[in-house]
């Protein structure tokens, strides 16, 4: 009982330390734990595979540095898949910092596939306005987007001229960390124009997306870092997300142990009383 009493009054900093160690050690010594592919992630992959060369994919980077850890790996993996399949990428952001983060991924991935800015991909930057903007964008892109993120007129680029309305868009991929984000794309774009929507979200948001998958309003979902790791596995690009999965698994085991210990302490204290 003395041991249980000691555990009950355990300094919480020891728990922080254990979690820290459980994250760092697998990064230094990778375990290579397998990453299983879930259906919502496979569905996104299959949709991209089904698109013909030259199809236009809108990649909406709706996140900021606070969610970069979860969504940037998904951005990179998805862009890699698009460029490998010779799809054209039209990037924008519903969050101010989103398109900047998306641009970092574009600058890293596009040169690997010899893609040309303006022809194979374009970034039109941050687009404020949420629902109103999305409704207008689907009706007539020129109403909303006049320049790219550098201020260059969009009609000076072949890809800029090719995207006139929602009818020219074959798929929307929103990398979403909140509001505005995936829900706006579903309600104000998919429902009105019928354009297929896929999403990568933070893990916190992931459970809320399942009703939309089951209703067919979402094609698929990359939920958190795990979803990104699954996509990296599918596109054979084992990078940051796959690298983080060992730590994630070890910490989850540790947390389960903490929960069990916590319950043992709770029940033993109840019995004492």
């Amino acid at each position, binding site marked *: 009982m003395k041991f249980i009493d000691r555990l009950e009054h355990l300094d919480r900093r020891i728990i*922080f330390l254990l979690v820290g160690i459980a*994250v760092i050690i697998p*990064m230094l010594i990778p375990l290579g734990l397998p990453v299983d592919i879930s259906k919502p992630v496979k569905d996104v992959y299959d949709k991209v595979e089904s698109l013909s060369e030259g199809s236009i994919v809108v990649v909406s980077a709706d996140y900021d540095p606070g969610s970069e850890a979860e969504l940037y790996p998904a951005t990179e993996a998805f862009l890699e898949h698009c460029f490998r399949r010779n799809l054209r990428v039209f990037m924008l952001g519903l969050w101010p910092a989103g398109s900047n983060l998306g641009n970092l991924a574009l600058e890293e991935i596009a040169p690997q596939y010899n893609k040309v800015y303006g022809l194979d991909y374009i970034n039109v930057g941050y687009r404020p306005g949420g629902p109103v903007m999305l409704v207008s964008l689907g009706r007539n892109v020129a109403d909303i987007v006049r320049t790219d993120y550098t201020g260059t007129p969009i009609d000076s680029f072949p890809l800029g001229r090719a995207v006139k309305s929602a009818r020219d868009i074959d798929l929307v991929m929103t990398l979403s960390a909140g509001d505005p984000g995936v829900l706006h794309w579903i309600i104000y774009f998919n429902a009105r124009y019928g354009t297929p929507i896929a999403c990568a979200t933070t*893990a*916190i948001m992931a459970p809320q997306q399942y009703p939309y998958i089951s209703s067919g309003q979402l094609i698929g979902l990359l*939920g958190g870092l795990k979803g990104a790791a699954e996509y990296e596995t599918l596109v054979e690009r084992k990078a940051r997300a796959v690298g983080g999965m060992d730590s994630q698994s070890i910490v989850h085991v540790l947390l389960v142990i903490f929960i069990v210990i916590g319950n043992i302490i709770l029940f033993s204290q109840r019995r004492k009383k």
Partner: protein
Amino acid sequence: MSWNVGVWIASLLTLAIYSFLYKDNPFYKVAENIFVGVSAGYWAVVLWFDFTWPNLFEPLINRGNVISLIPIIVGLMMFAPLIPKISWLVRIPLTFTMGVAMALVVTQRIQGEIFPQLQATFLPLAGVSPGVLISNLLIIIGVIATLIYFYFSKEHKGVLGFGAKLGIWFMMIAFGASFGYTVMARISLLIGRVYFLLHNWLGII
């Protein structure tokens, strides 16, 4: 190890923030205040360069679009409460904003959320595999039971009470899934920061 000044600043600020886990200290306070200040400055720049200038002043000044004067005047009315005599003017931009928002939200939420979600619960119970049947039954029972829990016009007794209790179970399972995902999200953020420190800063992985 990185020689990039930006990476060093980000790394030291990360360590300063995490130092709070040990106990509150001046390094944490400095990092926290820098974050608040930078965020405020960043939003001020975003509001001007991404909202106000391109949507309001650029069309007026560079393209002579006088229609932009209307939103400018209506927007200025938002400051009317500062002058008590004309404070009533604030109602004009507020009603306009509410009207547009209501029109958009009501029509699109019905079309884009309520109907498709309702439709998604009309699931077949015959002519499907046993696995799909169980899945469909769970969805149908879960929706009905949860709706019963939120039906407050009659006391939850008998069949209604059983349905409400079942609804609580379904919701508890949903909350558990959400909690699990939340834990995963928080750990992912920690992994992201640790990766940054070990890879971008120290270069040891």
